[in-house]
């Protein structure tokens, strides 16, 4: 049956209304206007990710990104934030593995202020000693709180086991010991060798004209050059699991145990990415968290949440199931999830499940694109993963081409239910493992 979809393709962001301009120094600017609300959003990235972190200074890229706004050659910390906060604007930076991401928003009338502050933080941060020390205490406090967070600690161990020697295995914000060792000089050096206009992408969406955006960015960042920029190192290969690895992170005094189980998933650009996301939707997202939500929450009443996620990056990804359960129900939940994973990799999803998923993927497009930040993030992904400006418009057609057999092949290519990483974090139950 050739199902049509009830969506106006031309209302989606596409080549007809996304404006793109490359500056000679390597900066790419993308823009889409929206005059429905008097605000404007910026979103972007540059290639100063945590993959550059030395092993004994894990957290350096993240620390540097946080420190950019602690003072510049022309503005101290309070002056800088006073400019932004006085007009209700916001701006922030945060490193991930491949990139340092930037984001901000303002009333449209304040976009020039936002862009000039952005440029000042990128080009002229001075990393004042007192603010570096203060920020270090804040980051370490965050890491101390993280050590008590069952969700974060299970995720941390999961990534460590799954990704081995690859930077995906390591937390962007580092560890207490590695952050302790980071000095002001490390930040200055990191900024000098990894911040530059090459590969800088800036997306602006909101109540502003393309020409004005291009002129503003060119004026503030067009002359930026950094000949000293380091190239990304070659990264170690990511190996598949040979057997199931089970780990428990004991955190005393917790009512709930967080469970993460899963394996490697496709990279964002992989040809089977779309069939994996549709399969993932059926497995643990659709409606009330898909098949896994139905088994673990709806039928067994074991958890408030039990769902799956697919995280796809440049070189690889992860395919995860996570749930929060009472410690006495942990093994039961693991077994229920395993059952669902076995079924998912043994038999194709039904035609009606697939049609549900397809309708959901296409139908939710307008909703995911209603806010400026939703549009800006979508456009940034098109650019970052080279998906093409017409990606969103071709998306419905591509979604409709996926078949149950393709989803099964994809599921089998990635998920082996007998070779998983299974991590729990919480307070071990006394009534089991006696």
């Amino acid at each position, binding site marked *: 049956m050739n199902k049509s979809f009830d969506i106006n393709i031309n209302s989606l962001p596409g080549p007809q209304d996304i404006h793109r301009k490359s500056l000679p120094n390597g900066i790419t600017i993308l823009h889409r206007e929206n005059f429905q609300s008097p605000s404007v959003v910026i979103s972007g990235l540059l290639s100063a990710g945590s993959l550059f972190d030395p092993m004994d200074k894990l957290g350096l890229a993240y620390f540097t990104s946080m420190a950019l706004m602690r003072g510049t050659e022309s503005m101290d910390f*309070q002056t800088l934030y006073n400019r932004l906060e006085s007009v209700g*604007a916001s701006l922030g930076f945060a490193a991930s593995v491949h990139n340092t991401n930037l984001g901000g928003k303002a009333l449209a009338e304040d976009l020039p202020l936002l862009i000039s502050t952005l440029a000042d933080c990128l080009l002229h941060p001075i990393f004042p000693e007192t603010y570096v020390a203060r920020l270090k205490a804040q980051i370490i406090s965050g890491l101390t709180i993280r050590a008590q967070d069952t969700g974060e600690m299970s995720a941390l161990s999961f990534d460590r086991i799954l990704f081995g020697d690859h930077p995906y295995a390591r937390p962007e914000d580092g560890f207490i010991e590695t952050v302790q060792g980071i000095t002001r000089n490390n930040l200055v050096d990191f900024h000098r060798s990894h911040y530059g206009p090459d590969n800088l992408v800036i997306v602006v969406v909101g109540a502003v004209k393309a020409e004005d955006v291009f002129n503003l960015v060119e004026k503030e960042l067009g002359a930026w050059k950094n000949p000293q920029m380091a190239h990304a190192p070659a990264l170690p290969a990511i190996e598949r699991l040979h057997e199931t690895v089970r780990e428990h992170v004991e955190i005393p005094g917790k009512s709930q145990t967080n469970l993460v189980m899963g394996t490697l998933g496709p990279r964002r650009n992989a040809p089977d990415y779309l069939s994996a996301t549709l399969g993932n939707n059926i497995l643990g997202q659709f409606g009330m968290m898909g098949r896994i939500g139905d088994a673990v929450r709806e039928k067994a009443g074991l958890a408030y949440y039990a769902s799956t996620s697919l995280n796809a990056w440049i070189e690889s990804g992860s395919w995860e199931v996570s749930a929060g359960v009472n410690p006495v129900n942990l093994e039961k939940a693991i077994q229920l999830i395993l059952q669902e994973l076995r079924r998912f990799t043994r038999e194709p999803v039904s035609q009606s499940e697939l049609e*549900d998923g397809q309708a959901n993927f296409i139908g939710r497009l307008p909703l995911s694109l*209603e806010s400026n930040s939703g549009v800006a993030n979508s456009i940034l992904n098109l650019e970052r993963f080279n998906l093409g400006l017409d990606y969103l418009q071709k998306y419905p057609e591509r979604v409709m081409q996926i078949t149950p057999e393709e989803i099964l092949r994809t599921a089998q290519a990635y998920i082996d239910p007998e070779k998983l990483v299974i991590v729990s974090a919480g307070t071990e139950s006394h009534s089991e493992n006696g």
Partner: protein
Amino acid sequence: MDQMTEVMLENGMKVHLKEIHTAPIISHWVWYRVGSRYETPGKTGISHWVEHMQFKGTPLFPAGILDRAISRDGGVWNAFTYMDWTTFFETMPASKIDLALKLESDRMVNSRYDPEEVASERTVVISEREGSENEPLFRLEEAVESAAFETHPYRNEVIGSIADLNAIQRDDLYNHYRKYYNPSNAVLAIAGDFDTSSILERIRAVYGKLVGSPMAALELPSEPSLSSEKHIEVHGPGETTFLTLVYRAPAASDPAFFVMSVLDSLLTGPSSLNMVGGGGISNKTSRLYRALIEKELAISVSGGLQATHDPYLYSITITGRPDIEPEKVFARIDEEIGRLQDTKVTQEEIDRAVKQARALFAYGSENITNQGFWLGYTEMFDTYTWFSEYVKRLQAVTPEMVQQAAQTILNRAARVRGIYLPEGAES
């Protein structure tokens, strides 16, 4: 301009409509005046559990059917239970909105409350509570709230106590549902891409036929003000100390609420009142950030002011530094509050808070779901003018009013002081 309409159906259900044609989307919200404020001892958490049961199906839409139908159409739906209200929303492609009208009008009266579903949902709700218990700030909040009120149900957590969640039975849930879920206790709010007269016709067809049973507004005995400073200590796992100060805050409909909103903005930074989307802005130039974080007395500070039916709480919450005694932090906060009590703020500071509020509302208005939220939410403690006049009412706040609010509301002798002491750091 967006077209606004307000209608009262014969069965007592108030309807708010706002036509917005920026995207082919409609957001549909039903609000009920029920939440922890309406709960009696032994039944805490019942309103929230009823909200869960509302997803378990009716004869017309059995469990699972709804989820599937909404998701297939690319919609999102969810529900929230709070102190003063319970709300259910669907945001859908405009052409599919009839499903929301049908299902919400149906489950307003026809939910089944199957005993097996009640049993399995009991453990789900307990699991939700256990997830919260993992958080030190939840434990601290729970202890401080129950100390801040003697009798008012605001002293209980919306999720309920474990003892009550174990004791509540199917008929308790069903009776609570039948009592509060009826058109005369509900407000319908719809925002988005529709034509007012045709949607009104559909509203009358599906909701108009339901029978309302008028309810007297629940008046609770007024809670005496705190007569001293209470000290609460919570011990739990971890290595981080958290501190909090709570004061009785004005009800949302009280003109003093807007003054308090400005005061909060100056002290701890502007808070976004948007429920869905919009995001917030940082608070690094606020008085307490400068006094505490810039002086290396604390790691972070935030303020909490919520729009409620009855006077609730204004809270200041701090993440402590391991090398600083809590007493020192409290003393520094008192010094800053003393400054607000003794010296008038400048008009410029108030203007700044107004501009921040204007920006936060602009961010929130990009999103149809948030527009629908505001239409109904304000009815739970005031009327929609509360929202439409919000910025104007902030503009009317004067330095004298801020000073007076600091003196009367942020009263040191009438507050609860809470400390979460990590066991990991004690030994």
